[in-house]
């Protein structure tokens, strides 16, 4: 779709292992009038196209994935009218195989070569893993990444042509709150699926809490039953429950989880995942729009002449706060007023 007024075009390309982009204009010698008209249109649109920079958004995931869509919303807000935004979805959330990642990266590379964008915006780890690091490290085309979890080390950043924003769970504000409001908490349990990312998440939590004198131990589970059992164990053996992700837990049941929480909940519980805010008293979660907005702002600055190497890699700084009033009332727990005012209130 081309918007002549703002020079802002959104063109989406989904993962097409064997596909190729089609010509927008199909030559038809039998229709000279159509050609003439098309040429005229082309001439008219040339100045717009010439002055509008092209930003290619490479998503590790797919359209419709909530995290991805949040990043896109943030980008669109900033780029509107400043850069022609094109999209490429690698869809690696639904296709986790490495081979797929490599194959889709090649398609993305082909698409990049074909569309010649002025800047790449690579969202989340797989885009850097399969595409940027192998093909665009220190290349002439600037790259802005975002959504990379915890650290850029696996991908060798920083490059001369890249900067971006890390995605770090907002543990620090939770720890700060607990330290100021719940001084008696000394031991907490991290309850999450037994997957690598959750192990990494646990480590981060452990470090953060440890720096404030709170010990955190993990319970990694594989299925719903284990999760319920872990939940009950945490209620018995710790002062704090940190609820991790539910991705990777077999036969996850919201109903079961709800029932468990309503019957067993007794200690203060927190989470960093907004979709798990129903089961924790306090949820402080990442804001995907922040990732998109920063990446877009950096892209605009680079396109405006700022040297990308001078822009430091930074971590996310904003978060959403959710308070579960049902659980807080059940546990008779009062949170600071300023926190309650800022928070989004949910209930079971």
């Amino acid at each position, binding site marked *: 779709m081309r918007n002549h007024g703002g020079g802002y075009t959104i063109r989406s390309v989904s993962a097409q292992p064997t596909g190729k982009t089609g010509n927008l204009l199909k030559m038809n010698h039998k229709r000279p009038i159509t050609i003439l008209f098309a040429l005229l249109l082309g001439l008219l649109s040339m100045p717009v196209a010439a002055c509008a920079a092209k930003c290619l958004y490479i998503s590790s995931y797919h359209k419709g994935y909530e995290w991805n869509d949040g990043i896109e919303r943030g980008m669109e807000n900033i780029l509107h009218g400043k850069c022609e935004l094109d999209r490429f979805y690698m869809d690696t959330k639904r296709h986790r195989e490495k081979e797929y990642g490599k194959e889709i990266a090649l398609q993305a590379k082909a698409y990049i070569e074909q569309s010649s964008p002025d800047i790449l915006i690579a969202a989340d780890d797989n885009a850097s893993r399969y595409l940027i690091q192998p093909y665009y490290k220190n290349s002439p085309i600037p790259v802005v990444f975002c959504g990379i979890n915890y*650290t850029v080390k696996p991908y060798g950043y*920083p490059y001369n042509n890249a900067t971006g924003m890390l995605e770090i769970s907002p543990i620090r504000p939770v720890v700060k709150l607990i330290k100021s409001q719940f001084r008696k908490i000394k031991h907490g349990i991290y309850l999450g699926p037994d997957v690598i990312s959750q192990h990494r998440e646990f480590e981060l939590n452990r470090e953060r809490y440890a720096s404030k004198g709170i010990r955190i131990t993990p319970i990694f589970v594989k299925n719903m039953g284990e999760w319920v059992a872990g939940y009950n164990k945490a209620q018995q053996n710790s002062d704090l429950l940190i609820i991790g992700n539910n991705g990777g837990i077999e036969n996850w049941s919201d109903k079961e989880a709800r029932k468990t929480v309503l019957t067993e909940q007794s200690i203060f519980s927190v989470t960093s995942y907004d979709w798990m805010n129903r089961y924790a008293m306090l949820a402080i979660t990442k804001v995907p729009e922040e990732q998109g907005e920063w990446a877009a702002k950096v892209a605009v600055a680079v396109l405006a002449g*700022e040297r990308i190497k001078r822009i430091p*890699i930074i*971590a996310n700084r904003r978060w959403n706060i959710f308070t579960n009033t049902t659980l807080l009332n059940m546990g008779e727990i009062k949170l600071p007023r300023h926190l309650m005012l800022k928070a989004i209130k949910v209930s079971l």
Partner: protein
Amino acid sequence: MRINPLIKPIYLATAIGLLFSSALLTLACFNSINTQERQFLSETARLKEQVALNIRKAHETLDNITSLFKASEYVDSDEFDALAEDALHRHPVIDSVMFLPHIALEERRAFEAFMQDSGFVTYKIHGNHNGQEKLHYEPEYYFPVKYIIPLTPSHATLIGEDFLSISALAPYIEQAITSGRTIATMIRKSTEEPPQFLMLKALYAGNSSPNSKYSPHELVNGMIIVRVNLNALKKVIQNSNNITIDIHLHPTPKDQPDAQEISVLSSVKQQQSEATEHWKLHSINTEEAIDIGNSQLSINMQKTLSWHDLDITLLTLTLLTGLVITVLLIMTVRSTQARNRELHERNEMIAKQVQEKTRELQQLSQAVESAGESIIISNHEGLIEYVNPAFSKIMGYEAAEVIGQKTSILKSGQHDQAFYTDMWNRILSGDTWSGSLLDQHKNGSFIPTYMSISPIQNEQGKITHFVAIQQDMTELKHAEQKFRQSQKMESIGTLVGGIAHDFNNMMAAILGNIFLAQKNIDQPDIVEEKLANIKAVGDRAADMVKQLLSFARKDMLVMENLDLTALIQNAFDLAQVGIQENIDTSCDITSEPLIIQGDATQLQQIIMNLMNNARDAVEAKKSPYIKVSLDHYHPEAWFLAKYPEAVSRDYGRITVSDNGCGLPKGIMDKVFEPFFTTKAVGKGTGLGLSMVYGSIQTHNGMIEVNSRENISTSFNIYLPIAQQAEVSSPLKNSELETGKGETILLVDDEDYLRETIKEVFSSIGYTVISASNGEEAVGLFRAKASDIDIVILDVVMPVMGGIEAATIIQGLKHDVPFVFMTGYSSQNPLEQQGFRNASLIRKPSDIQLLSREIRDALESTSP
């Protein structure tokens, strides 16, 4: 040069107006300049306030964040962000707020690691040259940027930059550390980068201040820097109205000798062309100072007033007002002049009109004075106020005699009250009354006049005067009489042939009867029968002659009550004599008596003229006829509409119609004009119908003609019926008045007549002495004066006429009565002679009439 006196006031008014305009314009200029100055002062005060407010906000933000750091053991990025973002949100003049910790050389790695762990994964302290790892100087400590808000990509490039590496800034950092106060400065990090306005304040360990026992360099643990958004500040001052603003910074108070002034901001000066410079009017400036900690910001504001800055609308309006006043002045002068001129012209015009009116009045007066008609002006009570000389000439009165008299002084008494009532009704209704009437001369005689009387009304419609114009109709009447007489004679000529024929027949009848009487003399019955026949024929002849003589008589107009039925019958009979026998004549007269007031002779003449015309018209017709009719006519609507002057409700309608050649359509309205005729040359005078028309008018009647060419013509005459009138009867009875032995002196030159009358009167009781002429009669009277009781005289006789003789006889015996007899209609000896007891009868007359006259005369003189 001599100036036209009319133009001079205009020049004067123009000069005054222009002077006034100039004065107004000057006042407006001064006012405009004052307004501009006031606006400038107001604007500069506002600008200073705005700049001061913005700088103060930046300064307050600096102080607030400094206080935050002083109050907390540790300020994490969240707290810094919250406070700084709030300040940025509220004060757009703040570009960014930075926190730069004081990092000792040995702390560098640990600090960098901490920052990397905090999310700035690539954090390194670096100089201001593109983030190079190696600093270009040998520092003793660092002031790297730790926090910067807002964290935009551009600002993010400052993270880790050691501000001590900025050579231009280093002295001010030092000054901020040592002074402990806010330091404001302008720096330019490189020639490529725009200058930055920075406000710095040092943070010290704990609650210490630079004045404590530790040196500032020992105490300092960080620096807060607020960068002022010069573009936002520029927006504040660029809103100013043509005011040039220069903002300078004095890092130390201005009065200090080493103070070095740094330009912070200058508003864009508008390029003024040389031509514009010429229009420069006035320059105003002001300088204000704002303290920022240890520094001072001076704001110099200047505005050059040119003519363009003046309030053009005010000046234009003022100029227009002045010009309008000038124009009004000129117009007033011109208007005054025009009014004077107009008044002058109007006066001249009025004088001219007065002259003209005077002349007209004089002419009118002369015309009135010299008019042939008498003009009488009376007031509303009928009192005469003016008469012209013609009045005196006609009526015999001098003006002085009638002024103040009632108009009734002129009344002759010959018109009845109804006449005057009708006249006054018409006049008092506002109309003009016109009509013929008889007025009485001063000497008592009657003057026939034609008079028009008009009322004069004032503006309210009230009658104030009456104007009467009186025309003496005496001459006209005489002329009319002469004309009528000639008409009669013309008619008589026509009659003669017929009369001669009738007379011959009658003579034959008389002679035949005489012959038969003589032949049968011995048979008294037959003789008596024949004599009766002879008398009848004689009466008839006498009637005919009498009518003829009556018609030919030259009498004055005598309006009397007449029975129209008898009159029309007689007129028809007389006129019929002159009409050929082949023409079928008929007369249809109503049995109803129709009494009118009129003159019998004129009416006869009317019938005669109309029938003679009809006779001529039917001359070529195969079955010619002439019809005369008389009926009673009650006016219909069309009649009253056509004749509004109709005074009567009843009319006698006389119609004379024929089936002759008729009148062409185009001449219908000309037939009554004098000398208009359709007859062949020598056959008509063209005065007949004119005379008819005049006579009808005299009788207050109307005449109408209807004709279809070659088919018919009819004349309708309408004569008003007299109300409650009695017909004058010539004879009260037909009996002979017998004598009582009185003696009559009979004088007539006709022997047979004298003898016949002598024989008749002798037989009825009178003694008759006769004489054949006047002289003989005088002789006889002298001889037997005492015996003679009455004298009967023929007027025309040889030797001595009857009048002369009677005059002598009256001299002899003054009370003797006379009865004159005459066969000539023109004679009326009684008009001129002052006979005390005399009467006139016309020959031939009835014996009965003569006997009655004699009896009346004798009885009138008897004691």
